[in-house]
C-alpha cells in the first residue's frame, strides 16, 4: 500500500503532508510523557520489529498477498503518541532508504498507514478494554483493534483516491476492491497482533502500554529466616490519556477532510508558480518542523500551492498549539 510519487495530485499530497506534519508534531509532545527517557530506544525497537514483520507477506486471496501494517500493535505496545512516531519513522526509513513509497507521497503514507491505523486501533482497544481488563480481554481487544484498523485505513485511502487520485478509475470500484481485500488482511493483522500482545502479556505485562500497573508485594527475609511483606511503591501509571488524544485525532481528521475537499475542485495540473514554490520552500525550512515539513509539502504542482501551504501550516500550528496547551494544562494539575 506504499503510495509512490505521482499517484495522488499535488493538493492531496500537500494536504496529507500538512496533516501528517501536524499529527507528528502533536505526537512528539505526547510521546515524551508516555515513555520518558525510554521513548527513543523503545520506539526504535518497535519500529524495527514492525519493519521486520512488514516484510513477511502472507497470502490473502487469489494472487494477492498482504502484510502487517502494525499501527494497532505499535499503539498497544508503546502508546498512541509513540505509536504514530514509530509508524512515521518506519515509513520515512522505507521511503528514503528503500525507495518504498515516494518521497513526495510521504505525507499520504504517514496519514493513511500511521495516523489512521493508530487512531482507529487505539480507540477500539480502549473501548474494549474499558469493558474488560483481563488478560484474555486485552488479547481480544488487540485482535479487534488490529482487525478494524486495516479496512479503516483502506477506506481512507479510497476516499483520498476519489478526491485526488491521478488515475481515472471509478472510486466505488476502488473502495469495493480495497475494502474486500483489506478485511481479509485485517484478519491476518488481527491474529498476528493478538499473538504478539498475548505473549508479551504473559511474561512482561509491564511492557504492554495498554495494560499497566499490576505488581505484587515484596518479601523481606531476615537473618533467622523470618519474613515480612512490604508494599510496592505505586508505579506511576499513565491512564486516561484518551481524551486529548481523541481530540487531537478528531482535529486531524477534520483538517484532512476539510483541506482536501476544499481544494478538490480546483484543477491540480500544470506548473505556473515556480516562484511561489520557491518562496514557500524557503518559508517551510525556517519553520520549526524543518525538513520534516519540507518532505511532506514536497509535491508542489498546482496553482493553489502557496495558499494551500500557508493554510496548511497555519492549521498545523493551530492544532499543535491547542493540543500542546491542553496537554500542558493536564500536566500541571497532575504534577
Amino acid at each position: 500500500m506504499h503510495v509512490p510519487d505521482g499517484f495522488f495530485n499535488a493538493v492531496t499530497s500537500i494536504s496529507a503532508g500538512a496533516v501528517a506534519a501536524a499529527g507528528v508534531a502533536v505526537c512528539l509532545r505526547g510521546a515524551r510523557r508516555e515513555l520518558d527517557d525510554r521513548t527513543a530506544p523503545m520506539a526504535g525497537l518497535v519500529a524495527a520489529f514492525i519493519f521486520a514483520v512488514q516484510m513477511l507477506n502472507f497470502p490473502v486471496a487469489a494472487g494477492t498477498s498482504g502484510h502487517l501494517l502494525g499501527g494497532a500493535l505499535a499503539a498497544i505496545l508503546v502508546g498512541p503518541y509513540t505509536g504514530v512516531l514509530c509508524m512515521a519513522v518506519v515509513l520515512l526509513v522505507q521511503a528514503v532508504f528503500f525507495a518504498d513509497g515516494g518521497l513526495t507521497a510521504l505525507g499520504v503514507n504517514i496519514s493513511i498507514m500511521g495516523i489512521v491505523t493508530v487512531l482507529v486501533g487505539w480507540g477500539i482497544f480502549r473501548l474494549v478494554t474499558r469493558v474488560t481488563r483481563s488478560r484474555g480481554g486485552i488479547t481480544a481487544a488487540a485482535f479487534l483493534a488490529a482487525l478494524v484498523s486495516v479496512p479503516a485505513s483502506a477506506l481512507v485511502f479510497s476516499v483520498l483516491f476519489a478526491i485526488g487520485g491521478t488515475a481515472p478509475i471509478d472510486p466505488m470500484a476502488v473502495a469495493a476492491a480495497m475494502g474486500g481485500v483489506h478485511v481479509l488482511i485485517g484478519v491476518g493483522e488481527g491474529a498476528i497482533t493478538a499473538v504478539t500482545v498475548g505473549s508479551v502479556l504473559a511474561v512482561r505485562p509491564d511492557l504492554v502500554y495498554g495494560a499497566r500497573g499490576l505488581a505484587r508485594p515484596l518479601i523481606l527475609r531476615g537473618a533467622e529466616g523470618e519474613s515480612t511483606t512490604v508494599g510496592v511503591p505505586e508505579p506511576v501509571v499513565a491512564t486516561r490519556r484518551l481524551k486529548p488524544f481523541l481530540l487531537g485525532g478528531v482535529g486531524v481528521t477534520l483538517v484532512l477532510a476539510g483541506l482536501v475537499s476544499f481544494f478538490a475542485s480546483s484543477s491540480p495540473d500544470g506548473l505556473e508558480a515556480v516562484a511561489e514554490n520557491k518562496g514557500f520552500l524557503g518559508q517551510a525550512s525556517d519553520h520549526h518542523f524543518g525538513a520534516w515539513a519540507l518532505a511532506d509539502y514536497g509535491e508542489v504542482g498546482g496553482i493553489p500551492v502557496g495558499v494551500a501551504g500557508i493554510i496548511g501550516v497555519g492549521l498545523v500550528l493551530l492544532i499543535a498549539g491547542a493540543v500542546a496547551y491542553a496537554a500542558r494544562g493536564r500536566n500541571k494539575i497532575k504534577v
Partner: protein
Amino acid sequence: MTSVHSLEVKQLAYAYPDGTQALFGVDLSIARGERVALLGPNGAGKTTLVMHLNGILTAGHGSVAVAGTPVRKDTLKEIRQRVGLVFQDPDDQLFMPTVRDDVAFGPANAGLRGEELDRVVKDALDRVGMLEAADRPPHHLSFGQRRRVAVATVLAMAPEILVLDEPSSNLDPAARRELAEILRSLEVTVLMVTHDLPYALELCERSLILSGGVIAADGPTRELLADTELLAAHRLELPYGFAIPAV
C-alpha cells in the same frame, strides 16, 4: 570523607516484572578503595543486585547509596559517571557499529572530543589487548574478544567504582591474569561478581556470599574459603587441584 562508604545498600528487595522475586532484603557496605568479591550460586541474585548499583534497576524496597549519594532518578547521571559496570553478557554492553565508537561512547558523553578522546580510546583498547580490532564491528568478534572490549568500554570512562559481573569468564588464561593486573593497578573501589574462587582469593581481601537473595556471609576471603561447610551450603567449593596458598 572516611566515614562515607563507597557503596551502601540497605534492605534492598526487588522482583522482576514477571513476578519472580530475586532479592529479599540485602544489606552491605563497601569502603572506599576496597576490592570485594561477590560469590554465590547461580540464580542467587548477584546480577540483580549489581544492576541496582548504578540505577539500571530501581529498588522495589530499600535503598542504595553511592559515595553518600542515594541512587534516585535525579541523581542517576552523577551516579552513572561514578560507577562503571561491566555486564555479564558482553552482547548487552556493546551496541555501536565499531569497537572504536563503542569505547568512545562513554567518554564522548562525558564531553571528551578530538585528540583527547582518541587517546583515551586507544589507551583503553591497548590495556585489554584489542587495539588492532578497533575498526571491526563488535558483533563480529569472538566471545572472549567481546568481553575484553566490554571491559575497555568501562575502563575508558575512568569510574571511581568498578563493578564487574564475572569478568574473567570466557577470557583466556593470560587475559584473565592481565585483567587481574589491571584491576590491581587501578586505585578504585572494586566489586567483582565471580564463580572463580581462586580469582577472588587472588584479587579481593574481602568476600560476600549472596544466596537466595540475601547476604549469607561477609568476611575475609581467605577465611570464607577455608570454611568448607559454609561454602558447601551455598554451592561453592574450591576446584580440584587448588590449595589456598600460604601467605
